[in-house]
């Protein structure tokens, strides 16, 4: 009995559309959530066209890079489940190509993830081959943990409303980190260690739902529910940090160490995770929410840590982390994707970027930011007044690495005039 992939009807429709376009082979990513023996696919994101290699063979690196950036746009609970390819080439050749693709994609994504894998994680990934002429689909899964894994058969089922009725858990996480920088530029690993301590703390933290610590196997049925601007319910969680893990023997020599500087990160981040059932298990909810927290902080911080300062003489620098913007999926009643906005970007750029990366459309009155209460701590900036605080280190910023994709940025800038209306999450 292989895995069963339950695909949303909108996704099916989209794949059909791609088939009828007949623009040569199309590759893309399947996005959704895995659980037990079943997986739920809610997005099919085609790989953006690469002008340089248009029409040539499938570029593994290009697809992997696309996947890496897409996975940053996914909130807790949604992951890249596999790849699809629409081509009339021979099934046997395609399966080989797909196999290479899916391993490349998954290896790149898992090398980036900062949270530790759990024992009950599903390690199967799907490859879907659709023949545009016959509309025949071939669906296989591979075990990513095993490089020699053989293709296993899998079933595809279409259903409407796969993306509706998901449970959402969320929280505002207060981050207050002080991380030493490595003494020599050469050792990049040391800067990762500082975050690792925090990551482990979050993984071991106690999660309260409605103020109570619920047993792991119980179901999440009720809780403190608030509604967002689009009247979608969010279950609020609270995270209690277990005090730092005690090092049994801390030698006096270890207490003070030379370093090359330090980094502080302070502020609140919004974390969210989705679970596909009405009554998800508490253990799963906690795991996914924690993973989202770790990903969003680690992603933003790590990128900034690796970035050198603008000039050599500059000793101290302060800037805002890119803020997280949430965008609801049209096809789904309760799902969102997100993106990170830098100070010099407008919201319409975000929308366009999401469209390019994910291939789906968003409702016109769609995106919003979870808002912060207006506070006046003198040293900390408010979300709206980013501009004067930010240093323009990020112009060359790495959010879209391959130069080819830079074209999108230019195109998006030209579309600035099309402003999407913004909705702010109202203060509670």
């Amino acid at each position, binding site marked *: 009995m292989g895995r069963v992939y339950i695909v949303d009807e909108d996704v099916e429709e989209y794949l059909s559309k791609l088939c009828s376009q007949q623009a040569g082979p199309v590759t893309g990513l399947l996005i959704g959530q895995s659980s037990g023996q079943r997986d739920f696919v809610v997005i099919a994101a085609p790989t953006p066209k690469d002008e340089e290699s248009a029409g040539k063979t499938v570029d593994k690196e290009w697809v992997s890079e696309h996947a890496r950036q897409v996975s940053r746009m996914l909130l807790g609970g949604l992951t890249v489940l596999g790849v699809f390819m629409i081509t009339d080439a021979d099934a046997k050749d395609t399966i080989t190509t797909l196999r290479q693709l899916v391993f490349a994609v998954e290896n790149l994504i898992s090398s980036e993830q900062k949270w530790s894998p759990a024992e009950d994680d599903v390690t199967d990934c799907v490859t879907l081959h659709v023949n545009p002429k016959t509309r025949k689909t071939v669906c296989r899964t591979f075990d990513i943990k095993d490089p020699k894994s053989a293709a296993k058969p899998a079933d595809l089922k279409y259903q409407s409303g796969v993306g509706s009725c998901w449970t959402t858990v969320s929280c505002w996480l207060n981050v207050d980190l002080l991380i030493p920088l490595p003494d020599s530029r050469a050792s990049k690993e040391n800067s990762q260690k500082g975050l690792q301590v925090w990551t482990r703390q979050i993984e071991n933290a106690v999660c309260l739902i409605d103020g109570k610590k619920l047993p792991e196997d119980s179901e999440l049925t009720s809780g403190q529910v608030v509604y967002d601007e689009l009247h979608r319910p969010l279950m*609020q969680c609270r995270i*209690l940090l277990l005090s730092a893990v005690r090092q049994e023997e801390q030698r006096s020599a270890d207490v003070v*160490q030379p*370093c090359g500087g330090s980094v502080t990160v302070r502020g609140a981040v919004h974390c969210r995770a989705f679970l596909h059932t009405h009554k998800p298990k508490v253990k799963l909810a906690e795991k996914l929410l924690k993973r989202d927290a770790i990903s969003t902080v680690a992603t933003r*911080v790590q990128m900034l840590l690796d970035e050198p300062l603008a000039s050599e003489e500059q000793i101290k620098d302060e800037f805002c982390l890119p803020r997280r913007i949430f965008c609801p999926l049209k096809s789904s009643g309760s799902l969102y994707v997100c993106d990170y906005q830098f100070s010099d970007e407008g919201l319409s750029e975000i929308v366009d970027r999401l469209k390019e990366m994910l291939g789906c459309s968003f409702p016109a009155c769609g995106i919003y930011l979870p808002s912060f209460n207006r506070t006046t701590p003198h040293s900390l900036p408010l979300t709206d007044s980013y501009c004067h605080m930010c240093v323009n280190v990020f112009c060359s910023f790495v959010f879209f690495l391959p130069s080819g994709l830079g074209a999108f940025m230019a195109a998006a800038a030209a579309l600035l005039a099309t402003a999407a209306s913004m909705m702010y999450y109202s203060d509670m």
Partner: protein
Amino acid sequence: MVVAEPTTLIIFRVKGSLELRCHLDSTETSHIQKVLSRTFENLRAQIKSESCVFTVCNTPVIIWPNKDVYEDITPDSPCEDVLQRIQSDEPESGGKRATKKKGKKDLSASVISLRLMMEVTKPGPLSAPVISKTVQKSHFLSATLPLDCAVRTHSKDTIKDVCDRLLEALTQQLCEMEKVMLQHMKGSTLLTAEPLHFLLPEPKGLVTVVFPAGVPDKELEAQRRELHQRFKLPNDRPYFRRANAYHFPNEHYKDGYLRNPHHALTHPTLENGKVFMVQGIYSYHHYMQDRMDDNGWGCAYRSLQTICSWFQQQGYVEQPVPSHKEIQQALVDVGDKQANFVGSRQWIGSIEVQAVLNHLLGITSKIMFVSQGSELASKGRELANHFLTEGTPIMIGGGVLAHTILGVAWSESTGQIRYLILDPHYTGSEDLQVITEKVPACT
């Protein structure tokens, strides 16, 4: 505070670690002091903040003491309510304990463990995340402070009172840790601080002292002397060595040996009889422990190990309990045995035990000879006196058997005597129930 009924005492113990982290621009002493003080100030503010949380282990009770938010309990509830909520009692390593013993030294108190946690989620007000980066060759201080506070309360005290006292104790402990760290700072080398609890004779009770971590006992003599003075304790026996630290009833011993298994027994009643017992803590050593098969020949070695454990745990010596080989080597070193004695399976007797105690631990002992077992009864007075004044375990050996006497029940008027024996011939596991039931404790 005078305690009327010792059995209604409850100890609330909160444990947790806080991270001490700061960036040091220079390693100049005064700069380090300033930065350290500032960092400790921040930590104290954390304890006083609304994010500070106490969770009661093994219960669903969660308390935000600075916000007056109590989950699953009300602030006015008496402490004993918390006891009722503890679902599973952690069994001591090696079996179940008998409940409610009447020990003189033992508090007979229940211990409720709490964990200190920090909440990291907030409903608001919030601020946008800001990153600040400083690139400069400098130093970084990173340590984990193991906070550990205990307060004794009456069962009728309210939870709110207890939480207030715990908060105060935590803040006080942070101050003491700061003091200890600054005191023991040498240049740019710093030591972390380590709190230890000590059970002093009533009415002083449970006291917590912060020591610098990793500094051996002999270097802390001045600090201990000051403590003896402060608590008006005699200087002829140790109270504040690390080995004297109070062992909470619900904690497991890391080495796996049972401590004072005789506490699980009831005393015999003799007409006009009184009980004279070993004072303090020893660990039970017997055949087959430590993967050493000494079945049939090692009884005196095991008895000697039990005695050594007493001296170590009362803080008189720092040496760990010697192994069979170490005991044999000691006898070779004093010239009592030939070199091939080491690694052999030969018995030893009282004389050898005395020699080893003297050579390895620097302890003098007295040997009392009795030509027959029945003569021992006439030594009742002497045995009773020994337990009263010295309180150490007694090794009794003769011929092919050795045992340890832990106490006597002796009647001065009738001369009747009963012995409390710890039998080293036991070959089973550290299961208290089996040991106290199967092995007859009194002859």
